[in-house]
């Protein structure tokens, strides 16, 4: 260090005189104190837990839960463990969030486009819908929907059509059920998740893979054909067939014959058999979908309005059809604006699903963060597990959306 001008003499004044050094020291101290605070809080909490004789540890996860839940998509009853109910709760949260995200996206795009309609009435209806829904707290809406749902007839007096039943207990409907193994079926498969064995899983996996790759092939074929002939084949229609119809046919082929398991009234007039979608699930799904769709609609509107008018004008001057203009010119560019805020709406929907507890849907908060917490008294463990689940789900959603965002981002040259 013999260079002139860089004083490293060690005098305090010069040391403090360097803004970068000072900044580093300040940052270091802040981090040090933050760590100190965290470790103090942890220490303090564990000491207080000890002094109050509250039991800690993870042993409760293997203890029998002792309670049953209304809705589960894996096998569960009161003899299963608290660990199992944790899993049940996660699946219930994921199910309502996943379906909610899909429905809210469709409804939100639909309303958002309506909002931009040139028809005064349509546009105003969408406007009123958005502004009412956005400005009423979700919890209030859920309680309202649930109260309305309870006004439906009792299950003994359900509205009925084609073995579908609607009552204040929810919807009961026929479920496909697998008949005995026939010559076509090399093994027994079960269609419903409760009875889903590995073989059924394999069939569904194969069907899914065939659907995915055939859809991709259709897309590429359509692209090649358009580049070669200038003609646009009905790719959307074809890919619907390959993505949905083909997998269903594959499953049917392996699982034939498929019978129908019809709901039947038991001695109380309660419908058993078939598939039951409980009222609490429907209300939560309805509430989350409607609430989030209003926000998505505004995001979609802003995204479409962000695409400059010149783009649309250029497209029509080239003679593109109106639907092509929307699908090929406007929406791809609007997506760049839409996706980042859309991601946070997906996260909101997932986190808002914790309001399930208000209407009796057994999500992760109502199960592990509710009854299990109360029965075992191990609040810190249960809340930590609940928090971790939401953290993992939320980070996964944003990772996926970020990857998607990068793919549709403007490629700058």
């Amino acid at each position, binding site marked *: 260090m013999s260079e002139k001008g860089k004083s490293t003499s060690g005098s305090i004044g010069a040391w403090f005189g360097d803004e970068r050094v000072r900044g580093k020291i300040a940052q270091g101290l802040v981090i040090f*104190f933050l760590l100190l605070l965290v470790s103090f809080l942890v220490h303090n909490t564990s000491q207080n837990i000890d002094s109050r004789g509250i039991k800690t540890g993870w042993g409760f996860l293997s203890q029998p839960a*002792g309670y049953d839940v209304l809705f589960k998509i894996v096998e569960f009853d009161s003899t299963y463990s608290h660990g199992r109910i944790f899993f049940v709760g996660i699946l219930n949260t994921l199910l309502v969030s996943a379906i909610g995200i899909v429905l809210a996206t469709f409804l939100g795009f639909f309303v958002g486009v309506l909002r931009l309609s040139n028809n005064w009435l349509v546009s105003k209806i969408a406007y009123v819908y958005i502004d009412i829904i956005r400005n009423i707290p979700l919890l209030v809406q859920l309680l309202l929907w649930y109260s309305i749902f309870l006004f439906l007839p009792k299950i003994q007096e359900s509205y009925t059509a084609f073995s579908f039943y609607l009552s204040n207990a929810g919807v009961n409907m026929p479920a496909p059920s697998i008949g005995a193994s026939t010559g076509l079926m090399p093994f027994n498969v079960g269609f419903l998740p409760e009875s889903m064995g590995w073989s059924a899983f394999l069939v569904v996996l194969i069907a899914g893979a065939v659907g995915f790759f055939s859809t991709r092939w259709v897309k590429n074929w359509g692209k090649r054909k358009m580049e070669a002939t200038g003609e646009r084949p009905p790719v959307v229609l074809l890919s619907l067939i390959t993505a949905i119809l083909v997998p269903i046919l594959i499953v049917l082929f392996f699982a034939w014959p498929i019978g129908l398991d019809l709901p039947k009234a038991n001695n109380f007039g*309660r419908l*058993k058999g078939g598939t039951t979608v409980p*009222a609490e699930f429907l209300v939560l799904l309805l509430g989350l979908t409607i609430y989030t769709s209003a926000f998505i609609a505004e995001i979609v509107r802003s995204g479409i309005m962000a695409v400059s008018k010149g783009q649309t004008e250029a497209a029509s001057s080239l003679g593109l059809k109106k639907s092509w203009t929307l699908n090929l010119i406007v929406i791809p560019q609007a997506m760049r604006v839409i996706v980042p805020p859309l991601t946070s709406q997906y996260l909101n929907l997932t986190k808002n699903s914790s309001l399930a507890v208000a209407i009796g849907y057994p999500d992760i908060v109502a199960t592990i963060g509710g*009854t299990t917490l*109360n029965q075992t008294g191990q609040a810190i463990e249960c809340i930590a597990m609940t928090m971790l689940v939401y953290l993992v789900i939320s980070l996964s959603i944003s990772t996926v959306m970020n990857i998607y965002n990068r793919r549709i981002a403007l490629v700058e040259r």
Partner: protein
Amino acid sequence: MFGVIDGPHLGFFKYQGRYFIMKGFKLFAAAAAATVVASTASAGTLDDVRARGELKCGVTTGLIGFAFQNDAGRWEGFDAEMCRAVAAAVFGDGDKVAFVPTTSKERFTVLQSGEIDVLARNTTWTASRDNNLGLDFVGVNYYDGQGFMVPKSLGVDSALGLDGATVCVQAGTTTELNLADYFASNGMSYEPVIFETSDEIRKAYEAGRCDIYTTDASGLAAQRAAFADPSAHVVLPEIISKEPLGPLVRHGDNQWGDIVRWTLNAMITAEEFGITAANAGDQADNKNKEVHRLLGTEGDMGAQLGLEADAFANVIKTVGNYGESFDRNIGPDTAIGMSRGLNALWTQGGILYSPPFR
């Protein structure tokens, strides 16, 4: 415990001859101080309550007869009077109570964390709750058992005919566990609809979302009283569990636990000896030595607990004896209409029995 802030110089730095306080340090120090205070608050509950000037008492969010707010916003009921009794023992004034409504799910956490001093919320005394939660039950103020209520129109007259029913039940209760046990041990299936508060359950049950409402028999009677047409519902004869309900305190503060325990015992003893709210101040001629020890005109029962000599006299003057409180809130002449049953004194065929004031 917290040895890092060992001098006033930490958190400051000297720059060009002047001292500067580090950004955020004040906040940090305040947070640390608050945590230290919070962690030492459980040292002596009696001192804390006195310093605060009021008792923080956890009750239900609203159950007619046990704890609910009347039209004037005043908390009333059998459990609410337990709170008033403890306040009367500590302050000589039954109104120095801050009622904290708790759901069945959050009640233990609220008590564990020190947010309330005592929980009087028709809570069942069980082994695991007593041993696992860091809480202590101090006694039983109501011997109860779990029952089932069904609409009369269902045509069921026994709980054994409930196979395949849908059941409304409250989250985080012993009821929820007994229900699972009872149906499993009788080879019956059921579908639970689980809510947080009894109001939500009542709404869902009345709308026919469930066939059965199950909770403690006293709770069923209280809820039925609130129905539009109570006579359309029937409580089935089966009582499927023992539910001794009583007040709880935090484990470890034995003095405070004793105060709540002997407040309850004082109410029971007072009934045994015929001491009422009306005549408690008028017992100078009573020949019974135990009455004098109870009322503090003899001996040092109050002082043994760190209370005034007339602590229990104040309890009885404020809420009356056990029988008076029972009759006023949930007895046969109220809308709840519970008979004393097991909760009669041991001298009258029940099992209510207080250790002697000696």
